[in-house]
């Protein structure tokens, strides 16, 4: 087996690829990545004022944080209006202060959040511990229809200690809870005064937060125009007077728009467009080595993939590097190991299974001889990159005997219903993250909330439990090494391609910072002199 060395920290996130069809309907758990320090240009080169356009990968349903499923598409909107409580440093898992100065625990159960003094919402009211409590409580008390989120499910009690301190206790210990908060709408705090006076419905159209911008006007599926918030807590920021968000799920079209000057920045989750953009003279400076990506998940509760040999046979039959050439012109990264080289949990020897045609054919023949032929349907969303990938899988498997493949392309709700009700056999889903927490846990643990593949593997469970139960890196590493071995043995999925988020910028802008898969922070985004 040709094993390449690679290190990954992965958090699985189902269905959350920044694809056209998926925009706005996905779960509240995104990955995270470094904020790329040092790319901020010196103040002399960035002009204050002016207007710039950023292209998110999709529009949001409305501007209510509780309604935001996919951080991938909602991050730009929410961060501009609400800012983020904090971001998580990917290597260490440490909290990077923003509105909150710290988020810590001593027992894994009680977490303490400390807020920065003097932060105000754009309506002039204070962003204090009470506001955080209010924002978190409304996500779970039914006052507003909130997207189901793992972070909120784990919370037990929320207590205001003093105006700048809040504690939250969890139902079960979790030493890595900061990741869950960063990756859900709990990271965005709403103005309680505005919610109470406007009501939830109006607030969703006219939100009030503490972000660098405030809403000026909005046309659904088209432009959302944001104006500078003069009371922003970081003095002298934001750089821009006007920020326009013009969503487009079609990456190629988005790139064309940037190239023709119709927008100044966009985001690419695969890396292929960034290469194309650089060739055309754009800059793509922010590549954070974000890990994770898209998987095709086996349903272990249904034939034929209730048999591990069927899962192995399919994985061994596929040449993913060739599919990369076909679907992404070689521009994507095919995961060779579950965790990427810069993850503390990486081990070069724990490689994922790779293409072995003879062995695969032998397994297909063996299963057919037993009367269990490998015949299945791949579920995918129409028009997405995973649909092309599924067709490539189908074409490769057509060269083997005793295996038949159909591809069913549907819209997102149909696809999600198939996942949620476990009626699929092999289905595309998203996988991206920095730490295995919380998304890998949700997707692969037998009790995980997103365990669509009906995985029941005690070795996987033990590894994930060990990783969650500690903040000590060595202990976690031991757990996750065992976990990786268990995943390699279980073959729960085809690890299709790695998530690789890059901001693509026109030459006249700079200062765009990302955290998570595509959550840009706009306060330093500005026009070059």
């Amino acid at each position, binding site marked *: 087996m040709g094993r390449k060395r690679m290190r990954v920290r992965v958090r699985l996130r189902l269905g959350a690829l920044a694809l056209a069809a998926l925009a706005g309907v996905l779960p509240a758990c995104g990955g995270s990545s470094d904020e790329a320090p040092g790319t901020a240009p010196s103040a002399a080169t960035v002009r204050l004022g002016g207007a710039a356009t950023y292209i998110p990968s999709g529009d949001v349903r409305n501007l209510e944080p509780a309604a935001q499923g996919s951080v991938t598409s909602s991050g730009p909107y929410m961060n501009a209006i609400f800012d983020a409580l904090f971001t998580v440093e990917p290597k260490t898992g440490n909290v990077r202060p923003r509105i909150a100065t710290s988020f810590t625990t001593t027992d894994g159960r009680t977490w303490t959040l400390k807020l920065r003094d003097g932060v105000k919402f754009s309506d002039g009211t204070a962003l204090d511990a009470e506001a955080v409590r209010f924002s978190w409580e409304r996500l779970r008390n039914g006052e507003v229809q909130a997207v189901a989120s793992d972070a909120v499910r784990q919370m037990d009690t929320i207590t205001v200690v003093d105006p700048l301190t809040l504690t939250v206790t969890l139902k079960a210990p979790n030493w890595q809870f900061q990741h869950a908060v960063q990756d859900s709408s709990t990271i965005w705090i709403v103005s309680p005064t505005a919610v109470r006076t406007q009501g939830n419905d109006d607030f969703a159209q006219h939100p009030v937060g503490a972000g660098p911008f405030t809403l000026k006007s909005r046309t659904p599926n088209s432009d959302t125009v944001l104006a500078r918030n003069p009371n922003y807590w970081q003095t002298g920021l934001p750089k821009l007077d006007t920020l326009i968000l013009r969503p487009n799920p079609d990456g190629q079209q988005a790139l064309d728009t940037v190239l023709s000057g119709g927008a100044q920045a966009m985001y690419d989750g695969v890396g292929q467009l960034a290469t194309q953009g650089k060739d055309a003279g754009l800059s793509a400076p922010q590549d954070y080595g974000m890990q994770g990506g898209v998987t095709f998940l086996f349903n272990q509760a249904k034939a034929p993939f209730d048999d591990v040999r069927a899962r192995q046979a399919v994985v061994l039959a596929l040449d993913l590097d060739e599919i990369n050439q076909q679907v992404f012109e070689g521009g994507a990264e095919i995961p060779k190991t579950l965790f990427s080289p810069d993850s503390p949990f990486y081990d070069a020897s724990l490689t994922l299974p790779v293409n072995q045609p003879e062995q695969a054919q032998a397994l297909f023949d063996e299963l057919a001889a037993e009367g269990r032929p490998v015949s299945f349907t791949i579920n995918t969303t129409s028009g997405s990159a995973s649909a092309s990938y599924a067709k490539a899988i*189908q074409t490769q498997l057509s060269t083997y005997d005793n295996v038949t493949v159909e*591809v069913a392309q549907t819209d997102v709700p149909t696809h999600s219903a198939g996942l949620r009700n476990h009626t699929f056999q092999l289905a595309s889903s998203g996988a991206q993250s920095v730490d295995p927490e919380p998304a890998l846990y949700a997707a692969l643990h037998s009790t995980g909330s997103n365990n669509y593949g009906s995985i029941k593997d005690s070795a996987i469970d033990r590894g994930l439990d060990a990783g969650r139960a500690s903040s000590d890196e060595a202990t976690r590493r031991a757990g996750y090494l065992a976990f990786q071995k268990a995943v390699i043995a279980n073959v729960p999925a085809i690890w299709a391609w790695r998530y690789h988020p890059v901001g693509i910028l026109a030459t006249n802008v700079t200062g765009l910072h990302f955290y998570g898969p595509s959550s840009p922070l706009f306060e330093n985004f500005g026009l070059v002199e």
Partner: protein
Amino acid sequence: MSTDVLPTTRPAGASAGKPRTYTLRARRPYGLWIASAWVLLLVGCAVAADVLPLADPAKPVGRARQVPFHSLAPDQILGTDTYGRSVLSRVIFGARTDLLVTLCACAFGAVLGCLLGLLAGFVKGWADRAVSFLIDTLLALPPIILLIAIATILRPSTWTLTFGLTLLTVPAFARLERGAALSWAERPFVLAARSYGASGLRIAFRQILPNSLLTVITFVPTVIAGLIVAEGSLGFLGLGIPPPAASWGTMIADGRASLRIAPHEVLVPAAVVFLTVLALNTLGEKVRDRLEIRSRTG
């Protein structure tokens, strides 16, 4: 949406009947010959696809995105697609899919539509109201709703697609036939037949249907041409033939992603669609000319 590129329905009273008297320029009908040859070639290939020495359209024959004529081997002469499959083979098997689906949809739609239209235009009264109601309901419903509903409830397949396209053609044919029937029913010879006491059914099927059918038939090639384009739009919306089966629409839709690096993936099927639609429209017109000349001299 472009699934509406459906036949142009000729409404009631549209210039039916009066034979043309001006002289067409005496020209050899090269256009007709070429168009017929192209359609015959396509039909022949589609029928004989299985016995022709072609690669399996679902299986790879070589490296991905090879340009046309890079190799003169029959499998690769038109290049390969994103997944390394033979473009020639997929175009020919695609012809089979497209012709089958559109012919069936057109035939079902024409039979159903003409009967409904005849009923409405000849019987009038309650029948006209009922049929018009049905047609209006189908026409007032955005086709995308109908097609998405069909594609999600029944699973996408050749027959689901045929069913959807049929539904789209029925109103057109019904309107066409209704208009023609209405118009013919007012013509002197029909009125004369009536006054001689010919039965309604006899008039409908012996006088009105054959006469109005000419109008309908001349539109069949145009309808098929429109359906071929509609099939393509459905492929674009992800509602077309499920993979790995080939159809021109899905080939164009799939190739769109590599339009810049391998334009032949789109251009080859697009050219075939273009030529076919052109040929069908030419045929339609020439057939109409012929029929009208015959009705003048005969």
